[in-house]
């Protein structure tokens, strides 16, 4: 399952989705919105995505992961719109027979997501806002 959603992401739902009798391990990565960046107080965050392409790119990442590791089931949800501090912006759950594959594939997916998936984060501070990573 891959989705881009405006709703609050419930990790429990994704964990349920990847449960599998053949699974010995599930790794779940939750990217939450932090109240600070490089010492600056963050008030809120907003995510925007080019959703159809984001879903396609996530599908390609999962395909590459499946070639490298024995993935039984996966579920990826990325939030868009306004996200309050402490709420999940992204949740990735992967089930595998053995634990090394769960950790490796989950980490691969979030690392690649951050490199290629067309989603953009805007951080709001007390004195302005920036699009994260836009400038060198």
């Amino acid at each position: 399952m891959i989705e881009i959603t405006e709703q609050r992401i419930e990790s429990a739902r994704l964990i349920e989705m990847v449960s599998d009798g053949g699974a010995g391990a599930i790794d779940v990565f939750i990217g939450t919105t932090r109240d600070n960046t490089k010492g600056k107080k963050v008030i809120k965050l907003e995510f925007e995505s080019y959703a159809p392409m984001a879903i396609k790119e996530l599908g390609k990442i999962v395909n590459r992961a499946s070639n490298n590791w024995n993935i039984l089931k996966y579920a990826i949800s990325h939030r868009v719109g306004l996200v309050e501090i402490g709420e999940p912006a992204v949740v990735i759950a992967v089930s595998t027979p053995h634990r090394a594959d769960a950790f490796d594939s989950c980490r691969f997916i979030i690392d690649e997501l951050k490199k290629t998936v067309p989603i953009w984060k805007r951080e709001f501070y007390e004195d302005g806002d920036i699009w994260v990573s836009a400038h060198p």
Partner: protein
Amino acid sequence: MCKQNQEMEVTIVAYGIARDIIGTSELILKVDEGITVKDMLTLVKRKFPDFEKLTSLLLAVNEEYVEENHIVESGDELVLIPPVSGG
């Protein structure tokens, strides 16, 4: 007699900081037929020099990343991709 290049109208959609730089979410351009992605990006940067300040700028064609020398066709879905920051 020299043959004129045929022109076509393309619509480029902009997200994130790209939309802020352009000031609107859709940019309509008249370009030569057979234009490459690279030349299209050069055109956009010339029109909006603030793009030069970004870490990177790509053009997605029909929901895919493409090579710089990819030829843009009329009717393609074109989207400016500033540096991504999901997760």
